[in-house]
């Protein structure tokens, strides 16, 4: 699709370099810290699974024991594999049990002990990474066999019953009805849990817990459907909240295909500490890069708390930052499902053309990224007929601006989590729009200095001004000031800061080493 806005390349380059400038200090900070979740993710990579009788995962029990003895700042690998090499237990699981029974003491090995521990850790964690590599190849094989969706955008649907065993038939129904991507949203509480629940779960609120077993069950079910439908149906979950790195790891191990994974969402909308988030976020993205997982960012959320017209440029800025952090972590363009949304108040004159302008700007700023186009939510009401109408125009913008992933809107957005019938009606809506008006982009040619082009340029200009300001007084300051989504989050506030440590000199983590190696 030939470009419709013809953005000035110089301006675009400028925007990118400012984003780099604004992001680099954050990356440096992330490199200098580790978190309990990064370390637990390392243990999980090495194969540690399961939980104690009261459901607290062995990864947490072991981590806590280690931290109690030698602290977090050296990483968990040296003390743990030193203990294993010393023969304290013949495997991680055993070690975790002994540790939580208090029958092992950990130390920081030195010299040849340290070397041996490093080697053992690297070997075992490496095996975990190879398991992720295998899953990635498996996905590539299955996509080859069953094929990608014929149409763009890919059709993305949410299930949210809270019960994995209700989620599964609903997901399979949705796939049959045309969904290309299924997202299982999480129970409201999970992002604040500092551990990953275990096993199949049936009691989430407005979402289902993200657990390794739930991942496995749903992926298996969708493999069935993919086979039935001759189309590889992708699975999405959320690498976000306090366990971002571990969930990213589990996603890689269970062949999830996309993950919601934003560099700032946890800070802004879950009040998680900024440092904690940025550190976890970098590790999780390195895992996603390795696993061939497409990430989805969360700019859409800003427009639920800030006005979609006034704050349009904050979306663009956040997309540029997310792009920078993602590339730095090794993700490639095709993996960047940058988020944006149809959230302008429908009463605003020309609101539809404003949406087109914003969507086109994103499309042409990130020509090689899939882009995730999110439906109206904030201005949806109990008038489900009006809701169905707004969703249709959202779909039309998606088709006219060549979005990559279309999160299907529900007419009951303001009422309930999606019903089975809502999803079916919503897909009918999408199908009509794509089938009837899919080609309209050919006839859609905004005047070079008409309403749409001008609006797009204006938003880009405002983005550059904002980036300038951020470069001057740091991203952490900007976040503290409520730049994004009007949420004010100071760098020393929020949850999970106690799980962060500045790396000591002899900090060692085979996972990061291996992930950064390539």
């Amino acid at each position: 699709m030939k470009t419709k806005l013809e953005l000035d390349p110089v301006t675009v380059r400028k925007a990118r370099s400012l984003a780099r400038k604004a992001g680099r200090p954050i990356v440096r900070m992330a490199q200098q810290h580790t978190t309990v979740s990064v370390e637990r993710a390392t243990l999980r990579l090495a194969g540690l699974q399961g939980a104690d009788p009261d459901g607290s995962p062995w990864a947490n029990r072991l981590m806590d024991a280690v931290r109690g003895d030698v602290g977090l700042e050296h990483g968990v690998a040296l003390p743990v594999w030193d203990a294993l090499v010393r023969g304290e237990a013949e495997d991680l699981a055993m070690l975790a049990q002994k540790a939580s029974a208090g029958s092992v003491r950990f130390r920081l090995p030195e010299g040849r002990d340290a070397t041996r521990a490093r080697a053992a850790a690297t070997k075992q964690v490496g095996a975990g990474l190879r398991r992720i590599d295998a899953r990635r190849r498996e996905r590539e094989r299955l996509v080859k066999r069953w094929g990608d969706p014929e149409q763009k955008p890919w059709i993305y649907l949410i299930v949210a019953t809270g019960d994995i065993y209700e989620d599964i038939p609903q997901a399979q129904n949705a796939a049959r009805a045309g969904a290309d991507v299924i997202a299982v949203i999480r129970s409201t509480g999970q992002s604040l849990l500092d551990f990953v629940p275990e096993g199949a779960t049936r009691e989430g609120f407005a979402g289902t817990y993200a657990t390794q077993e739930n991942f496995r069950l749903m992926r298996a079910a969708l493999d069935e459907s993919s086979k039935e439908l001759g189309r590889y149906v992708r699975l999405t979950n959320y690498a976000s909240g306090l366990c971002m790195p571990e969930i990213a790891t589990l996603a890689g191990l269970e062949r999830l295909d996309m993950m919601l994974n934003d560099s700032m969402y946890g800070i802004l909308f879950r009040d998680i500490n900024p440092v904690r988030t940025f550190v976890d976020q970098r590790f999780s993205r390195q895992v996603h890069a390795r696993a061939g997982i497409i990430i989805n960012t969360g700019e859409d959320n800003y427009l639920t708390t800030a006005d979609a017209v006034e704050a349009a440029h904050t979306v663009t800025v956040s997309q540029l930052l997310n792009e920078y952090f993602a590339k730095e972590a090794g993700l490639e363009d095709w993996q960047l499902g940058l988020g944006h949304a149809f959230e302008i108040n429908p009463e605003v004159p020309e609101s539809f053309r404003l949406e087109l302008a914003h969507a086109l700007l994103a499309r042409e700023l990130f020509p090689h990224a899939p882009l995730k186009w999110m439906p109206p939510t904030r201005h949806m009401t109990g008038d489900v007929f009006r809701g169905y109408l707004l969703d249709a125009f959202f779909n039309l913008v998606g088709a006219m601006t060549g979005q990559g992933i279309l999160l299907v809107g529900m007419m009951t957005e303001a009422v309930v989590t999606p019903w089975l019938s809502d999803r079916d009606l919503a897909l009918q809506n999408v199908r009509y729009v794509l089938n009837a008006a899919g080609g309209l982009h050919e006839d859609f040619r905004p005047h070079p200095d008409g309403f749409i082009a001008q609006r797009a340029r204006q938003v880009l200009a405002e983005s550059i001004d904002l980036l300038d300001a951020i470069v001057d007084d740091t991203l952490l300051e900007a976040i503290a000031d409520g730049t994004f989504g009007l949420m004010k989050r100071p760098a020393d506030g929020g949850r999970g800061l106690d799980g962060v440590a500045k790396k000591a000199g002899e900090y060692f983590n085979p996972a990061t080493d291996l992930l950064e190696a390539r």
Partner: protein
Amino acid sequence: MAILRPYGDTTGDGMVQVSFTLPMPHSKVADGAGQQLANKMGIDPALVVHSKPMGPDFTFFVIYGRVNHLVDTDQVEVVERDYDLLTPKEVNFAVKKALRRRLTVVGACIGTDAHTVGIDAILNIKGFAGEKGLEYYREIKVVNLGAQVSVPQLVERAHAEKADAVLVSQVVTQRDAHLLNTKEMSAAFREAYPSQKRPLLVVGGPRFDEAMTEELGVDRIFSRGTTPGEVASYLVHALVNRRAS
């Protein structure tokens, strides 16, 4: 699977959506009135998720909630197809065998109803849903009187043509026009014919309830999405059996 509840997003949740208008100004009381009606319909809890004034005297409601009625699928009586679906070939053969002559149907859209697309879909060669209409059947003679045919005209033509079956369409249902016209029609035929000789009376239209044959005094009712094949197969079934008995 005898006893069921509506399904919103979990088995047994019983969730339904309702919308209606009450002739009263929009207010808190109106919301309460909307909720009251929903409760009376068995919806509890009933959430008024949308209420909007339509002018000074009316309020529109959208309500979601859990209905506490159970659906007993064993209690459902539907007019299941009690005859085999035949191919045109089989129909022609059966007619020939049973009647030893062509079967004559007279079709019309009676009263002031001018909607012929439905009856034409059944009668014209062109047909419906990929099936050819009755005119296509060698052994069926079709007399299509078109629309806005009065009942006396219809009876007269049925006589003249020695109709085996009379096919009537009714699409306009406002103020039960379709029911009134159908009753008038069947009464007239009972008038005009000795019960043995009366042609088979068949009515169709998108809003008929197929279970109302008794009440309307007709032999069969066809509704939404009927195909010519179904009608032809039914005619054979009914007329052949009749001869049989």
